[in-house]
C-alpha cells in the first residue's frame, strides 16, 4: 500500500487497523521530503516534533482509544502561520531567523486533534504573489510539471498535497492564495467564510480579506480539516460565535435541491480556451443531473483587480509596519531608530513587498485617499452587493455559484514575473469572494495524474457560513465523476 496516496478517511481506517504505525508514516514522509530536489514544498521540516507526536498517536491506537479523524495524519502548514518554537519566515528575509513565539489557533487545534505537522511550506513573501516566485528563499515547483509554477501564494501547501508530500495542508487566502494554487496543482482548496476560522497567529497581509483554509486531495479531506480548525476564538475579534453543521457531513438529499448560478461576466473575461472548455464541462455534469441552473450577473467583477490592489496594498502597508527590526530581525548597524527601520526593511523586504508597501502608502496618503482608497472601498461594496443580489430570493435566488478559478493553467516559471499587471490578473476570479467574505472551494475538474495534462479547477462559491453547501456540492461532483472521467 502506498500510504502517500490515501485519503484522510482511508488513512484513519488503516491506522486503526494497524496496517502501519504513525511513526512509520512520518519516516516515509520525512525521507521523501529530504530526498526531493525538484518540487521543494517545504522551507522548514519539523522531524523531531513530528516523530514525537507520531509516537503519542501510536500509543493511543495501541490502547484502542477513540482518535480524531486527523490523528496521525501528516500535514503541512504554510510558513506564515505561527508554531511555537518553530522558525516562521513568511517567505521573507526579514524573518529569516524568526522563531514563532506561540501557536496559531489553527495549529493549536491541529495539535489537539493529534495531526502530525511535518513542516512549514513555501510561499510568496508575506503571501504577496500568485506563483511562489516571490519567496525570498527559492521557488517551489509544480509537481505536474517542474518547469511551471505551483501558483501562489500558498504554492508550497498546494504542491505538498499534489506531490504526495503531505495528506493535507493549511494555506491562507487573501485574494485567491488557496484557490489559485489548488487549481494549478490539481488539488482541493477551500477559502472559508471570513470569520469562520481564527486568524490568530497568521502573519497578516490584508486583515479584512485574509482567511486560513485547508488543502486536501479530495473535497471530503479538505472538509475534515476545515471542521477541525473552524470555530470561534476570543483571540480574533472577527471570528464568528456559534456552531454550524460539519462541512464533511454529506447530505445527498439536500445537495440535490441546491440552485446553482453561473455568472456570465466570468465567461466574458479573457480565458484560455482549454480552461473554458473544461470548466463548462464541469458545469454540464451538474446540468445533466438535473440541478436547477440559472445565469446570474455579477457586473462589477471586472473592477476586482483594481479594487484589490488598492485595498490590499493599503492594509499591507499598515500591517507590515510592525517589521521594523526593533524586537527581532534587525539587519542594520545604524544607530538611530529611523535608520534602523529603513535599512532593516530595505534589506529584508523583496521587490514585490516594497512595491506593495509603497503603493499602499501612496493610496492612503493625503491628496490621494479619496481618489483611490475611498473609491475602492465603494466599489468593493458594489462587488459584495452583486453577490448579495445573486443569493437573495428577490434577486438571482441561487444557493451557490459555479465559476472558473483562474483564466489559465499553471504558467511557466519566469513567464509573468517581470510584468506585475499580468501576474495580478491571475486573481480576477478569486478576489471577489474575498471582498464579500464568502466561502469558496476550488476543486479539480477531473483526476489529473502526475506527469499527465495540466490541471484545471473550478470553484463553488457559497453564502456566508454555508461551507457545508459548497463542500457537499463538491463531494457530489467527485462522487458523480469518479471513474467516469
Amino acid at each position, binding site marked *: 500500500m502506498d500510504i502517500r496516496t490515501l485519503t484522510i478517511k482511508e488513512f484513519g481506517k488503516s491506522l486503526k487497523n494497524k496496517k502501519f504505525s504513525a511513526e512509520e508514516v512520518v519516516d516515509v514522509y520525512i525521507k521523501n521530503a529530504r530526498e526531493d530536489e525538484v518540487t521543494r514544498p517545504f522551507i522548514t521540516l519539523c522531524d523531531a516534533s513530528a516523530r514525537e507526536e507520531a509516537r503519542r498517536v501510536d500509543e493511543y491506537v495501541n490502547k484502542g482509544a477513540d482518535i480524531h479523524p486527523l490523528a496521525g495524519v501528516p500535514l503541512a502548514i504554510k510558513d506564515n502561520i505561527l508554531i*511555537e518554537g518553530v522558525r516562521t519566515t513568511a517567505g521573507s528575509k526579514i524573518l529569516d531567523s524568526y*522563531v*514563532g*513565539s*506561540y501557536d496559531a489557533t489553527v495549529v493549536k487545534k491541529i495539535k489537539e486533534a493529534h495531526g502530525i505537522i511535518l513542516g512549514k511550506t513555501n510561499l510568496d513573501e508575506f503571501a504577496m504573489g500568485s506563483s511562489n516566485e516571490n519567496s525570498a528563499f527559492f521557488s517551489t515547483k509544480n509537481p505536474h510539471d517542474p518547469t511551471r509554477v505551483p501558483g501562489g501564494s500558498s504554492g508550497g501547501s498546494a504542491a505538498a498535497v499534489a506531490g504526495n508530500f503531505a495528506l493535507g495542508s493549511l494555506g491562507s487566502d487573501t485574494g485567491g492564495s488557496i484557490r489559485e494554487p489548488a487549481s494549478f496543482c490539481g488539488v482541493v482548496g477551500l477559502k472559508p467564510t*471570513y*470569520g469562520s476560522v481564527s486568524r490568530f497567529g497568521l502573519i497578516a497581509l490584508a486583515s*479584512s480579506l485574509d482567511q486560513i483554509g485547508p488543502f486536501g486531495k479530495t473535497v471530503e479531506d479538505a472538509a475534515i480539516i476545515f471542521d477541525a480548525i473552524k470555530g470561534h476564538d*476570543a483571540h480574533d*475579534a*472577527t471570528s*464568528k*460565535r456559534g456552531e454550524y453543521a460539519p462541512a464533511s457531513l454529506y447530505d445527498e438529499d439536500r445537495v440535490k435541491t441546491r440552485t446553482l448560478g453561473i455568472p456570465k461576466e466570468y465567461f466574458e473575461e479573457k480565458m484560455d480556451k482549454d480552461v473554458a472548455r473544461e470548466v463548462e464541462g464541469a458545469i454540464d455534469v451538474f446540468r445533466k443531473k438535473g440541478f436547477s441552473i440559472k445565469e446570474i450577473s455579477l457586473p*462589477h467583477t*471586472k*473592477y476586482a483587480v*483594481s*479594487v484589490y*490592489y*488598492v485595498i490590499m496594498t493599503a492594509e499591507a*502597508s499598515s500591517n507590515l*509596519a510592525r517589521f*521594523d*527590526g*526593533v*524586537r527581532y530581525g*534587525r539587519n542594520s548597524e*545604524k544607530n*538611530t*531608530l*529611523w*535608520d534602523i*527601520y*529603513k535599512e532593516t*526593511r*530595505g*534589506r529584508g523586504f523583496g*521587490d514585490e513587498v*516594497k*512595491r506593495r*508597501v*509603497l*503603493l*499602499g*502608502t*501612496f493610496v492612503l*496618503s493625503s491628496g490621494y485617499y479619496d481618489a483611490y482608497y475611498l*473609491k*475602492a*472601498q*465603494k*466599489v*468593493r*461594496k*458594489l462587488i459584495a452587493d452583486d453577490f448579495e443580489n445573486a443569493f437573495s430570493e428577490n434577486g438571482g435566488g441561487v444557493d451557490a455559484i459555479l465559476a472558473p478559478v483562474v483564466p489559465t493553467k499553471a504558467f511557466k516559471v519566469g513567464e509573468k514575473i517581470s510584468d*506585475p*499587471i499580468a501576474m*495580478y490578473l491571475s486573481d480576477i476570479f478569486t478576489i471577489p469572494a474575498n*471582498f464579500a*467574505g464568502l466561502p469558496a472551494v476550488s476543486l479539480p475538474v477531473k483526476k489529473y495524474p502526475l506527469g499527465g495534462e495540466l490541471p484545471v479547477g473550478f470553484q463553488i462559491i457559497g453564502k456566508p457560513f454555508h461551507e457545508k453547501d459548497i463542500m457537499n456540492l463538491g463531494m457530489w461532483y467527485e462522487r458523480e465523476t469518479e471513474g467516469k472521467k
Partner: protein
Amino acid sequence: MEDIITREKLAHLKELAKVHFPEGQEEKMLRDLEKVIDYFEELKEVRTETVTPAAGGSFNTNVFRDDSEKKEFSDAHTVGQFPESHGDLLCMPPVFGNGE
C-alpha cells in the same frame, strides 16, 4: 496624463514607508508603480456617488474581551529574540536623534 508618481514623490513615499532601496532600483520601481496606478484609472468610470464604502471584512459586530493581564507568550521566544536586552527589557536606540 500628468505624472502621478514622480521621482520626488517616490522619494517622499520611501520616507513615509520607511523602506530604503538603492538609487539604481528607482527607475524600475517608478515604472512599475506608474503601470499599476494607471490600471486603477478604470475605477473612475464606476458611479459611486450614493454608495456607502465597505469597512472591514466582517458582517459581525465587534467582540470584546476583558482587559485583564495574561501571560501568553514564553520569554524564551520573545525576549530571547530581542537584538539587545537588559534582563527582560528591550534595549532601544534613541528615538530622537540626528534631527529626526
